C-alpha cells in the first residue's frame, strides 16, 4: 500500500487488526483501487460490533462529454458524430436513443453516428455529458469495502461526495452518534468530513 499516503487499521484485538490490514490491502489491490485512494482509516470493534471505513480519494477525472472522445460535425440538419474512443459508445447510444428516439439515430458503421436534428436540438450537443467516472468509482469503492468488512454486517450506511467517502456497517442497529464517530476518524487523518 505504498501509493496510499495514510492507511491505518484500528482494532482492539491486535491479531485481528493485523489480519484485516492484509485483507484490506489485498482487496483494494485486486479491485484496482490502490491508485484511487489517498487516505484510508479502518476501524473495527468486534465486541460492539461495528466496522467503519473512512477515506479520501485522489483527484479523479471529470465528467466525459461527447467532445472528449469524438468529433461532432453539424451541417444543416445533418449531424455526424465520428467516434474516436469506443469505450463510451454504448452509454452514448443509450443517451441518444432516449433523447431522440431510435429511428432518428443511424449508425452506418462502428465509428459513425448520423443524426437528423434541427438547430435547437443540435445546440450544445458536443457538451452532452456521457459518463461520470466518479459514479462507477463510488460503486467500486463501496463494493470493495463491503468485501473487506466482516461478513454478516447487514446494516450499512455509506456516503461519497467531495472526494470523501465512508462506510459504516454492523449487524445491529447503528448507534445514533455514528456520524460523530466517522468525523473522529476523519480527524485522525487530519481531515474533516
Amino acid at each position: 500500500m505504498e501509493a496510499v499516503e495514510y492507511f491505518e487499521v484500528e482494532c482492539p484485538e491486535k491479531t485481528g487488526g493485523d489480519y484485516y490490514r492484509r485483507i484490506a490491502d489485498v482487496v483494494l489491490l485486486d479491485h484496482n483501487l490502490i491508485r484511487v485512494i489517498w487516505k484510508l482509516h479502518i476501524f473495527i470493534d468486534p465486541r460492539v460490533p461495528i466496522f467503519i471505513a473512512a477515506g479520501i480519494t485522489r483527484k479523479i477525472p471529470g465528467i466525459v462529454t461527447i467532445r472528449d472522445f469524438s468529433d461532432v460535425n453539424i451541417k444543416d440538419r445533418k449531424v455526424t458524430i465520428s467516434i474516436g474512443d469506443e469505450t463510451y459508445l454504448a452509454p452514448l447510444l443509450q443517451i441518444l436513443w432516449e433523447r431522440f428516439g431510435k429511428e432518428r439515430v443511424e449508425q452506418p458503421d462502428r465509428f459513425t453516428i448520423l443524426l437528423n436534428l434541427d438547430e435547437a436540438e443540435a445546440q450544445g450537443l458536443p457538451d452532452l455529458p456521457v459518463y461520470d467516472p466518479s459514479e462507477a468509482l463510488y460503486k467500486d469503492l463501496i463494493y470493495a469495502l463491503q468485501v473487506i468488512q466482516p461478513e454478516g454486517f447487514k446494516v450499512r450506511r455509506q456516503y461519497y461526495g467531495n472526494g470523501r467517502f465512508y462506510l459504516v456497517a454492523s449487524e445491529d442497529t447503528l448507534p445514533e452518534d455514528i456520524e460523530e464517530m466517522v468525523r473522529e476518524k476523519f480527524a485522525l487523518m487530519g481531515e474533516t468530513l
Partner: protein
Amino acid sequence: MILVPVTYKGGIYRHDEIIDLIEDLGGYIIQKHLIAQEVVLQALVPKEDIDLIRRVGKPLTGEITSSPLVGTEIAVVTPSLEIHHLPHASCDVAEYIRRFGAKTNMVGLARGFGKRIAQMNDEERDVINEHDLAVFLLGDFESCIERKFPVLRRGINVPIVLCGGPDTEALKALIDPPVDGYVGGVGRFMHRTKESEEISKMDEVVDEVTRVLDKKREEMGKDPLSISPARLMNIISEKIDEVHEVLSPTPITVQMAGLRVKLPHDSFGSRIRNTEVDEGITIGDLAEVLPSRMRDYILVRIRPFSETNQIV
C-alpha cells in the same frame, strides 16, 4: 492383515496390472482418477506388501506414497459461501486436505455469518454429522469465535477441528468444552496460499486432522466393525450394477465406519439391505441402510462387532 492407505501415481500404460496386484494381495481400490496420461489410485493395501507394489510399479514409473486420509470423508464448514470465505481459506483448505486422500465436502451455512445472528439449521447439522470429521473455518476475531462457535457446534457429534485467526493457544483458551483439534493462524484471508509459510499452515491443518482421525481409529479398534467399509464397497459395486451409471467422481464414498452410496434411497434402499455379503448374511444384518440428508443418497452405517456378534 493390516491395511494401510496409500496413493499410487503412475503412467496409464499397464496400470491395470497394478490394480490386479493390489486386489490379489487383498487390498481395495477406493478411487481411481485418470488424468490425461497419468493414473492416480487411492487404495488400501496390506502393510507388508507395499514394497512389492513399489517394485512392480517401478518400471511403469509408478510411485507409491502414504496418504493417511484415504477412506475418510471430511466436511469443511464455513459460515457462508460468499466472497468473504471463497475461494481462499475454504477452498484452499478443502483442496489441500483432498491431496492426502480424503474426500472433502464443503458445507456453507445458510445463516452462519455474523456474530450474534449466526445460526445453523437441522439439515446442515445432519449433513455434517454424516461425515467422519468436521473442519470449522472461522474468522479472525477472538470475541466473534467465542460468541458464535457454541451455536455452530450444537448437535454436532463428529470430531471437530477448529481453525481460526487467533493462535492455537488462544483458540484453546476460548473454547469450552474443548473440541478435538485446533489450528490457529488460519482465519479469514483473501489471497491464495502459495508462500511456504502458508503452505506449512495447511500442513498443520492436515496433521491435526490426521491426529484426530488416528485417535478415532484407535477407539474404533477396541470394538471393530462387522465388515470393513472398503470390502462392503466392493460387494455393492459388484452386485448393484446401477452404481456404475452414476456420474459422480465417487459413486460410492468410503468413510471410516460406513459408505455413502449415490443412488436414490427410495428405489435402492431395500435392494442394498437385502444384498448378500456372505452365505446367509445380508448387508442389513451388518449395517444400517439409511436415507442420507445429502440429496437422496443412501448412507450405510456399519455396526460394530458388539452389536452384531459377527465379523465378515
